[in-house]
C-alpha cells in the first residue's frame, strides 16, 4: 500500500502547515486586500471601483439574483465536499469533472427509463448516478494497489474518458433527436426537483447539498471513521500501524467522494433546464472552484461552507458586475485570482509570524 500516495508526506505536510487559527483569522484581511487589488484593477480599466463593487454587491444581493447564488452554490459546495473527503486522508481526487458528469448522465439515463415514477423515480436515478460515479472514483484504489498508479494521477486520467463517454451518450444513444444539440430529452415534469418557494432555481438540490456537508461535518468530527481518515492523512504508516485498514478507508473515501460528485451532477440535471446537456456540467468550472475552496479550507467543514459562499458570491456577483457596469469578465477572473493569492499569502505570513513568535526557525 505504500504506493497508494507516494506524494503524501509533502502534500499532507503542506496542508498542515496552514494551521487552523491562521486560516480563519486570515479570511477577513485577505478579502480586504483582494478588494484593494480589485479596486486597482478596476481603476486601470477606467471604472470607478465604488461603482464596480456596488454592482458586485448588487449582483449578489439583488433579490432577483439571490436564487442564482443559491443555484450555483449547491454544486460548488457539493464539489468542495467531494474533494475534501479524500483530502482528509491525504489523497487528491482530481477526477471530479468525470464523476460529476457520470452522475448526471446516469441519472438522466435512468430517469428516461422510468419516466412515470415521479420524484421517487428521480431519487432512484440520483442514487444510480451517485453509485456510478462512486464506482468510477473507487477504481483508483485497485489501480493504486495493484497497478502502482498514485490516486492523484489515476483519478485525473480517469476523469477525461468519463467526460468523453458522457458526451458520447448525449450525442448518440441518449440524444434528444431533432434539437441539434447533444443533450438528453427533458426530464418529465414530475421529476423536476421541487422548488423552494423562492424560485425555480432554489430547489431541493440546495437542501441536499447542505445535508451532505452536514453529514461530512459529523463524520469528520464525531466518528471513528473521521478520526481514522485524519490519522491516515497525518501519517499513513502510523495509521497502518494502529490497525487502520488503509485499503478499505481509501476505497470508502474515494467512493464517497465520487458519490457526492455524482449526486451533485444528478441534482444539476434535475434543475432547470431539466436535462443533461453536453458540457453544461463541466464548463461552469464547479469542480475547479470546489477544489480551490477545499484546498483553501484544508478540508475543514466550516471552511468549506464559508469558502463556497465566498466563491459563489464572487462568481455570481461578477456576472452581475459585468452585466450592469460593463466590466469585462476577465476582470472578474482577475479579482477572483487575487482573492485566492492574497488569501494564501496572508495565511502564510500569519503562520510564519506565529512560528517566529514561538521561536521556531
Amino acid at each position: 500500500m505504500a504506493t497508494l500516495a507516494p506524494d503524501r508526506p509533502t502534500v499532507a505536510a503542506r496542508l498542515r502547515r496552514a494551521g487552523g487559527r491562521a486560516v480563519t483569522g486570515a479570511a477577513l484581511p485577505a478579502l480586504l486586500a483582494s478588494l484593494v487589488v480589485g479596486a486597482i484593477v478596476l481603476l486601470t480599466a477606467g471604472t470607478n471601483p465604488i461603482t464596480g463593487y456596488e454592482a458586485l454587491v448588487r449582483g449578489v444581493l439583488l433579490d432577483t439574483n439571490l436564487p442564482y447564488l443559491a443555484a450555483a452554490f449547491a454544486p460548488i459546495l457539493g464539489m468542495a465536499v467531494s474533494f475534501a473527503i479524500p483530502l482528509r486522508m491525504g489523497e487528491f481526487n482530481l477526477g471530479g469533472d468525470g464523476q460529476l458528469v457520470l452522475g448526471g448522465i446516469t441519472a438522466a439515463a435512468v430517469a428516461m427509463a422510468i419516466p412515470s415514477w415521479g420524484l421517487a423515480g428521480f431519487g432512484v436515478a440520483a442514487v444510480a448516478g451517485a453509485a456510478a460515479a462512486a464506482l468510477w472514483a473507487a477504481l483508483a484504489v485497485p489501480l493504486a494497489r495493484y497497478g502502482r498508479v498514485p490516486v492523484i494521477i489515476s483519478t485525473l486520467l480517469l476523469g477525461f474518458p468519463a467526460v468523453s463517454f458522457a458526451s458520447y451518450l448525449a450525442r448518440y444513444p441518449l440524444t434528444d433527436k431533432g434539437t441539434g444539440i447533444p443533450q438528453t430529452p427533458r426530464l418529465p415534469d414530475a421529476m423536476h426537483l421541487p422548488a423552494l418557494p423562492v424560485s425555480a432555481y432554489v430547489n431541493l438540490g440546495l437542501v441536499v447539498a447542505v445535508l451532505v456537508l452536514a453529514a461530512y461535518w459529523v463524520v469528520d468530527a464525531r466518528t471513528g471513521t473521521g478520526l481514522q481518515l485524519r490519522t491516515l492523512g497525518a501519517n499513513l504508516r502510523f495509521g497502518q500501524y494502529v490497525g487502520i485498514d488503509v485499503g478499505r478507508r481509501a476505497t470508502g473515501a474515494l467512493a464517497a467522494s465520487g458519490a457526492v460528485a455524482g449526486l451533485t451532477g444528478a441534482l444539476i440535471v434535475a434543475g432547470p433546464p431539466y436535462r443533461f446537456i453536453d458540457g453544461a456540467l463541466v464548463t461552469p468550472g464547479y469542480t475547479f472552484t470546489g477544489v480551490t475552496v477545499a484546498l483553501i479550507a484544508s478540508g475543514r467543514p466550516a471552511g468549506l461552507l464559508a469558502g463556497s459562499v465566498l466563491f459563489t458570491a464572487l462568481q455570481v456577483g461578477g456576472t452581475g458586475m459585468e452585466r450592469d457596469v460593463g466590466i469585462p469578465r476577465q476582470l472578474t477572473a482577475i479579482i477572483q485570482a487575487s482573492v485566492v493569492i492574497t488569501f494564501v499569502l496572508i495565511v502564510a505570513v500569519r503562520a510564519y509570524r506565529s512560528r517566529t513568535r514561538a521561536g521556531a526557525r
Partner: protein
Amino acid sequence: ATGCSSSSDSGASGDKPLIVVITPNPVGVNEFLKLSVEGSKAAAKAQDADVKVYESTDPTSISQNLQAAIDLKPKLIVTISFSFDDLMKTAPVDNPDQQFLQVDSCPENPAKNLTCARFKEYEAVYLAGVEAGLLTKKNAIGAVAALDSPFIHRWTDPFGEGAKSVNPKTTFSPLFVGGNNPFSDPARANAQADTLAQKGVDYVMAAASAGNTGVFQAAKAGGFFAFGVDVNQCGEAPGVVVDNATKRVDVAIENAVKAVFDGKPGGVTEYGLKENGVGLTGLEDDAASSGCVITQHPDVLAKVKEVRDQIVSGKLVVKDPAAA
C-alpha cells in the same frame, strides 16, 4: 482605453428604448456572436435605441441574465442560439408584455411575443462544397470543426455532399477538434488540418471558431486551401482562403428588430440562400475586393451560381444535418 467593448453605451438611461442582447457564451472568440452584437448595435442605431449586451458563461448564468433582462423591462430582449430554446418556451408566456427575439433557433409553436430568425447555413456550406468539389485536384477534401454535435454537422456534412454532387470521386474526411477547449484551440486545429493534408486532402472547411486561424496557417504552410465561416475570413490568410460560408446574422437581427419596433412582432423567419441570409463571399457583389481565392476561378463561380439558383428556386433541397 477602457477595454470594455463587450457592452457599450452602458448606463445610458435617457428616454431611448432599450434592447438587451444575451449571448449563450462569452463573445470572445466567436465570430458569429461578434457579428450578432454588431448587428444589434446597428439595428439599435437605426431605431434610435440603446443596447446592452449580457454575456453568459453557462446555463445558470444564461437564466440569470435573462431574468435580469426581464426585470429591466426593455423594449426587446434578443437571445442568441439554441441554448435559449427551453427558456423561450416559458419566458414569453410568463411575460406576455415583453417582446423577445430569438436568433438562430426557435422553440416549437413560439408565443405571440416571440420573434424568431433561423438560418440555413447548410445551404451555403453546400455551395462551398460545390466549389471544393470543382477545385480539388486530389479528389480529397476535409473539414476541421469544433465539436461533433449535430448542429455543427451543418458545417461539415453538406460540404462533403456539395463536393460529391459535382465530383462523385471526392472523398470527404471531417475532423473535430474536441479536447479541453474545442472552440479556442488553434494549435490543435492546426495539427488536425496538417493531419488532413498528410492524408492528401487539398481543400478544408474550417469551422473551428477560434481554431480557424490555426487551420488557415496550416494551409498556408502546407500549400492547401481552406474555407472560412460566418464572416469574410479571406483577409486573415491571403491566398489561402477560398471562400466563406457566411451567415448574415446582422441582417437578420436588423430585420427582426425593425419588425418589432414597427409593431409587427412574432413569427419565424428562415434565412437561407433565398432570403440572402446565408451565402458565399464569392457570390456577393463586391466579391472582387474580398481577397478570396475563388475570385480567380470565375468558371467555378458560374457553376456555383447555377447551383445556388437551383436551391433558391427550390429545385434542389439541401438536407439539414441537425434535423436528423
